[in-house]
């Protein structure tokens, strides 16, 4: 491209925590300053994109409020009074403090609280490497909103994410669906943002679009049908859809038989799958089906078996039903009218959507975290997955395409193979570890790329109990965020234009986030900061290669997906991960569930009464028939003006979206004498949050929405997460780790007189 000769063009990546998007960025550099960013080219022009936040990159890098040098706290925690110190003093202090705390309480009492690294890898990896070397605690941040979906996905699909199975082909540009159902996600404005283009492409080619959301989002505005479901009732909707599908015989029997546990027999007495050992067979752990051909039980993989999909059978005196039969019986109770009464979606719409999903060739379900941030959000995800499974819309068969990018993480994180690694705590479990020392005490925390106080549940508890019980807090930040005010040592980090990283996104591409300018002021990259501390803890040899050394380590092609991809080549642009050739015959994707199949029935959750995707009441959100102390369900949408709490302090964006507002339906506003633009207080037992009301039909009656990510100091009083709770769902602990249920909160709203 043509530019003035004194301007250098550097291809880099915006790794903001849109995660799977990672727009390629062409940085225009003049005299060491980045003067402009634009969307970089991609091998496929469909991937060339940027957003209003990415376009505001320089407002972050050159923001007048950037932290400029290391500081130590001089006032009370939270006051924001700090004194400039040198990097040496900062790192020496941290090393000494960590050693002293570890000597008294053990290294696991040091917790690395690493939030959303976005699409970045080495900054995250550098700290984990240090956590591993010191055998301290990695505090997993999945639980701050993102653990509900993996909990559900692990149970039904045996994978952390359901994305590849539900919409992998859409991401890879290989799908031509008849129908797209966006459920609990708003790709027009938030993750998975990079799906909005393929969704609209599919729609242009004739696909119908249905959107399921308590808010009428941008994505919903593009829909052929909008289902305004009440928060926390998604499972009821799924059961209602399946009721219709089963009643009309629209389910995909061959798919259910081949890919799911539907035909497997389940014992009536224990609720467990019937196994070979129950029949005295040598294949003791093997699953058993009812063979319609032989009219008797058979191991699932036995030759010539024709498994029965439904029915009740008695085998060796043990009464059983197929898993599908159990699902069908559950769904039989969820007539469209009953589902409508729970969800708020009309019975007619439920029937029509079910019939269309059942009748068309291919429906793609696009989903994300929104509806899984409810107390039983993991079950909601399973319910969605079950609808996709019984209609044959899980991409459980591989027909050629791309391998997933497989980075060489293991040696990177676990630098010394034989040594034990870090301990792991979920972020919601961290509260208790700090407050009451359970399951073990955490005395010091290191925050990086996380605005913990602002973004985690129950901010008041964090202020009063979590922070108050910590001996030492380190934060690496760009700005004086609400969290940074509580740090004992505050370290200035680089913006993305000032350091290098590897970004294995967007699928199916890998990109190099190339440093475009020298770090401003005394800021350092997180990888450099980790290296500085490692040196003081005696681990400098593991950080000798710097950021690029880490990038090379990750790119080391032990896996065929990374073959031929090098840092040097990535300087020029994004590279496609290796495609595998088209298969002549389709083969089943091996799933990591206990059965290796899609588990529409989970025997591991029998004791918890959650073996099937039941509709269970939300924790706080009001649903019909349940008495709650506060009448309105409070949810937190994700705004295009921020990525979580990033960009909340950018003037360009504040001009367009100046302050937090609570959206309330005219019906609820009328009952409370609230007019558009009034100041109101949103409150519950935990907090009062004062802000402006926007009266909008865009939220369901009975629901109020505040876009998450505003900083606490941008509210007159309270904040979004002062209203949320930190209640742990023990079933999620058992499955994986507990989630914060930001969309399962009840409030009342009152006008400020």
């Amino acid at each position, binding site marked *: 491209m043509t530019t003035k000769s004194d301007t250098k063009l550097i291809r880099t990546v915006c790794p903001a925590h849109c995660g799977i998007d990672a727009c390629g960025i062409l940085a225009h550099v003049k005299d060491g300053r980045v003067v402009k960013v*634009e969307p970089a080219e991609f091998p496929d022009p469909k991937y060339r994109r940027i*957003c209003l936040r990415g376009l505001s990159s320089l407002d972050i890098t050159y923001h007048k409020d950037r932290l400029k040098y290391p500081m130590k706290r001089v006032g009370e925690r939270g006051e924001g009074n700090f004194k400039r110190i040198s990097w040496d003093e900062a790192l020496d202090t941290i090393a000494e403090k960590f050693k002293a705390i570890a000597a008294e309480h053990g290294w696991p009492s040091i917790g690395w609280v690493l939030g959303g690294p976005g699409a970045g890898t080495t900054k995250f990896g550098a700290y984990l490497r240090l956590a591993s070397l010191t055998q301290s605690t990695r505090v997993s941040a999945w639980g701050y909103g993102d653990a509900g979906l993996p909990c559900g996905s692990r149970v039904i699909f045996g994978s952390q994410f359901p994305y590849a199975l539900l919409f992998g082909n859409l991401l890879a540009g290989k799908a031509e669906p008849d129908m797209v159902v966006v459920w609990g996600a708003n790709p027009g*404005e938030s993750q998975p943002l990079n799906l909005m283009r393929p969704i609209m492409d599919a729609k242009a080619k004739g696909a119908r679009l249905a959107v399921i959301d308590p808010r009428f989002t*941008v994505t919903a*505005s593009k829909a052929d049908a909008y289902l305004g479901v009440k928060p926390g009732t998604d499972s009821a909707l799924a059961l209602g859809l399946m009721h219709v599908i089963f009643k009309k015989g629209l389910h995909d029997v061959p798919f259910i038989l081949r890919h799911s546990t539907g035909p497997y027999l389940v014992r009536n007495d224990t609720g467990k799958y019937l196994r070979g050992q129950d029949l005295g067979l040598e294949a003791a752990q093997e699953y058993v089906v009812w063979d319609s051909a032989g009219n008797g039980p058979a191991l699932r993989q036995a030759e010539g078996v024709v498994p029965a999909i439904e029915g009740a059978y008695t085998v060796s005196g043990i009464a059983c039903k197929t898993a599908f039969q159990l699902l069908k019986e559950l769904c039989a109770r969820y007539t469209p009218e009953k589902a409508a009464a729970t969800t708020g979606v009309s019975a007619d719409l439920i029937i*029509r959507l079910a019939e269309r999903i059942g009748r068309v060739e291919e429906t793609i379900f696009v989903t994300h975290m929104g509806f899984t941030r409810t107390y039983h959000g993991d079950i909601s995800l399973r319910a969605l997955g079950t609808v996709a499974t019984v209609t044959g819309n899980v991409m459980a068969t591989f027909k050629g395409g791309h391998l997933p990018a497989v980075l060489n993480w293991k040696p990177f994180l676990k630098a010394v193979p034989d040594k034990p690694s870090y301990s792991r705590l979920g972020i919601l479990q961290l509260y208790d570890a700090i407050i009451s020392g359970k399951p073990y005490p955490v005395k010091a925390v290191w925050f990086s790329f996380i605005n913990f106080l602002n973004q985690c549940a129950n901010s008041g508890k964090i202020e009063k109990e979590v922070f108050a019980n910590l001996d030492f807090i380190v934060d690496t930040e760009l700005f004086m965020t609400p969290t940074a005010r509580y740090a004992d040592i505050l370290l200035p980090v680089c913006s993305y234009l000032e350091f290098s990283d590897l970004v294995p996104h967007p699928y199916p591409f890998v990109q190099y986030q190339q440093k475009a300018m020298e770090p401003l002021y005394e800021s350092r990259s997180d990888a450099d900061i980790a290296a500085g501390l490692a040196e003081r803890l005696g681990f400098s040899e593991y950080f000798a290669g710097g950021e690029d050394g880490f990038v090379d380590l990750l790119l080391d092609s032990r896996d065929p997906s990374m073959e031929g991809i090098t840092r040097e080549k990535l300087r020029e642009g994004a590279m496609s991960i290796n495609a595998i050739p088209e298969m002549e015959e389709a083969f089943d994707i091996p799933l990591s569930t206990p059965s290796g199949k899609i588990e529409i029935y989970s025997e591991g959750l029998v004791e918890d009464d959650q073996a099937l995707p039941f509709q269970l009441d939300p924790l706080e959100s009001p649903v019909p028939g349940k008495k709650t102390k506060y009448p309105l369900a409070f949810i937190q949408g994700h705004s295009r003006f921020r990525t979580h709490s990033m960009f909340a302090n950018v003037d360009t964006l504040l001009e367009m979206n100046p302050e937090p507002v609570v959206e309330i339906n005219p019906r609820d506003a009328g009952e409370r004498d609230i007019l558009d633009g009034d100041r109101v207080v949103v409150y519950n037992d935990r907090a009062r949050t004062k802000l402006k009301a926007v009266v*909008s039909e865009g939220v*369901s009656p009975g629901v109020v929405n505040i876009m998450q990510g505003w900083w606490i100091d941008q509210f007159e009083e309270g904040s979004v997460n002062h209203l949320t709770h930190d209640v742990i769902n023990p079933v999620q602990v058992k499955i994986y780790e507990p989630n914060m249920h930001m969309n399962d909160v009840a409030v009342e709203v009152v006008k400020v007189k």
Partner: protein
Amino acid sequence: MELRLGLVIDQERCIGCEACTVACKKENHGSAGFIRVRTQNVEQKDVPAGKFPELRMTFMPLVCNHCENPPCAAVCPMDAIEKRQDGVVILDQEACDGCGACVDACPYEAVSINEEGDVAEKCNLCSHRIDQGLEPFCVICCEGQAIHFGNLNDPEAEVGRLAGSETAFQLLPEQGTGPFVFYCPPLAPRGV
């Protein structure tokens, strides 16, 4: 074929994100982005029309229409606004004295006086870019891929095809301005 450079904005693809506004502001350093997104049929941005759950929300990006007969140019006492051969209506800020006649003359509210109050500003269709063979900056930054740029006279080009489609429309055609910006309306919901 006569060159008639213009835009086609596809409301079906516009997701109202305002990346175009930010892109314009960054590229052209105007006091406001020269392309601004309205939410149709309501006063407030991002609020749907209708009653829950029967709702509609349509976004309308508004920009200089690069008119065939630009009323702004006609009233400019300084001759600072010119319709170029290729169709672009250029406001030359060097020649402008900030009198504001163009602001009043434009039926599209596409011209404004800058923050300092001394000069008019509007979209020049990124003439500094298109003269180098590049697309306007809002076009390459549009998240929805809703803004198309090119020769409206070329039936082979995407803009020509879209502008010639049955449903394409111009804003205020009755004013006789002859806009070089066309819109494609959103598809009506088809239900399921």
